[in-house]
Structures are given as structure tokens and as C-alpha cells.
């Protein structure tokens, strides 16, 4: 039998030299979609037992410990990030721990493509694609938000002051990459975050 094999949707795209931020795809990250109710004590305890830390309850925040990170997506939905090869076993652990509760854990590592945007202009490039104000004080490292970016559904996290991870559905990866190439083309700098 053939083993399932991961192939990146952006495998043929090299690191661009024409942009004023650096862009690269992160392919080594596994993702688990976790759903359950925060009011369900059994579920919250089970999630903590597997992760070693509490699920973030506050909107648009994330928690992490070691190489596992949990992003808040909705009052009853989280995205667990871990190493790609670890995702199936971690999803199975969640499934086992939440067996008797109304919860769901699925390995969705191949559902989204992750584009890391790095550089002083990374926030500015994001602002070119969505209606959010990235100069807002809320936008600190660890911030997570789902948003309509370049007319498609996207999710981003702020990694540090000049680094943003953009998650888009796999089938939109090439479109998002093309959009970013144009939005971040050298010479199109607005300079909004210069020296910030």
C-alpha cells in the first residue's frame, strides 16, 4: 500500500527577491483542530492533561509550552500547533482523553498552508490585504485572529514585532503567495512601521 505523503502547495515557489519583506513557507508544522465546550470541566481537564497547559479562553490569544502552541479560534474551537510528525499521535491522545465528552480532535495538518512574512514591513503588507489596523496596541506577539485577507479566509498570528505567520487554506496558497508578491513589491513601501 502507498503511504500518504505530504506535498507542499508552494513547493515550486522559491524565496522571492523582489519583495521588501521576506516570505517563506513553513512546512514542518502540524495542526490539530480541537473543539469542545469551555463550560465542560471534563473536556478542559482532559485538554490540559494532554497539553500540560490550559487552553486559552480569552478571544484572539494563544498559549504555548515547549514546541506545542494553541491558538484560540472561537469560544469552542482551538488550533493546536506541533511538529508535523507528532500531529497524528497527539490527535489520537486528544481523542482518547476526551472519549466520554462532547469534543472533537482532528489532525488537519494538510488543510492550511503557512506563509511566514518577516521584516519591518510585515504588518504593513498585512494591512494592504485586510481591514484591520495593525498599529493597534492589541497586536502584540501571541495575538491570533481570523480575518478576510485579500478576499479569502485567513488566519494570522503575530510571532514577534516584525514576524507574522499567515495561514490560508491549501487551495488558496498560490493565490495568497501571488497577492503577497504584488503587495510587498520593492518600491511599494508605505513606511508605516519604519523605526517602530
Amino acid at each position: 500500500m502507498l503511504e500518504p505523503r505530504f506535498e507542499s502547495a508552494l513547493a515550486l515557489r522559491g524565496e522571492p527577491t523582489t519583495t521588501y519583506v521576506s516570505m517563506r513557507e513553513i512546512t514542518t508544522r502540524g495542526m490539530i483542530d480541537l473543539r469542545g465546550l469551555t463550560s465542560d470541566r471534563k473536556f478542559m481537564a482532559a485538554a490540559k492533561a494532554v497539553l500540560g497547559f490550559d487552553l486559552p479562553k480569552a478571544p484572539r490569544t494563544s498559549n504555548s509550552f515547549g514546541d506545542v502552541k494553541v491558538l484560540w479560534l472561537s469560544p469552542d474551537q482551538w488550533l493546536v500547533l506541533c511538529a508535523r510528525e507528532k500531529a497524528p499521535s497527539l490527535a489520537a491522545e486528544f481523542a482518547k482523553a476526551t472519549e466520554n465528552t462532547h469534543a472533537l480532535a482532528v489532525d488537519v495538518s494538510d488543510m492550511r498552508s503557512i506563509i511566514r512574512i518577516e521584516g519591518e514591513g510585515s504588518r504593513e503588507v498585512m494591512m494592504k490585504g485586510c481591514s484591520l489596523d495593525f498599529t493597534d496596541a492589541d497586536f502584540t506577539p501571541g495575538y491570533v485572529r481570523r480575518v478576510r485577507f485579500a478576499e479569502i479566509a485567513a488566519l494570522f498570528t503575530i510571532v514577534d514585532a516584525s514576524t507574522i505567520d499567515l495561514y490560508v487554506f491549501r487551495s488558496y496558497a498560490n493565490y495568497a503567495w501571488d497577492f503577497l508578491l504584488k503587495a510587498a513589491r520593492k518600491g511599494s513601501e508605505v513606511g508605516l512601521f519604519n523605526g517602530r
Partner: protein
Amino acid sequence: MLLVTCPVCHASGDETDFHFGGQAHVARPATSNPEGISDEQQREYLFTRINPKGLHFERVRCDRGCGKWFHAARDTMTMEFKAFYGITELPPDHVIKQAKGAWAEYFTMRMKKQK
């Protein structure tokens, strides 16, 4: 551009981050007793909508955010949002008091039922 605030995740955003879901508080008549529903009642439920000038109540989904449905009270003339409230809730009292016509009748009926 309309600025909408989701009462579930408290995210403020442009209307394009949200999805409009039609008139609020439309109750399905056939939930408990499908046989007892007349054609007129079913027609009312499916097609008849209020189209007021002024205060209106609508459903909205936090489409690109937390994904939850909620309600919004909007003035159709000024486009001003008067309130955002949960999907299982009624609007705040001071907004109900401003309702006119068909909406005033509806909320009076709901209040009576609650008592």
C-alpha cells in the same frame, strides 16, 4: 463601510468580516406540530418579512472571526447600529422601547409570552 462588533468574541471589524443573515426573530411555526400548520402560517414564515424605515433587527454572523451568529439592531435610514446582542437573546430594553410598527407588536407579544 459599517463597523460591526461581535457580542461573542468582542471583535470589531469591517462589515466584510461579517455575514448578513436576514431578519431576526423569525420563528419556525412547524417545530412542534407540523400537521397543525396552515399554508398561510408557513407562507408567512417563509416569505413575509418586515421592511421598516428606521429601527430594524437582523441576524449577523461573525464570518471571518469566531463563526458565531448574533443579532444586530440597525437603523435602516441612518445605518447606525443601536445594539449587538446574543443569538438567543432579546435586544436591550431601551432599544425595544424605540421599536415601532410591526417590531413593537412583535416585542409586546414576546414580553407577554415571557410573563
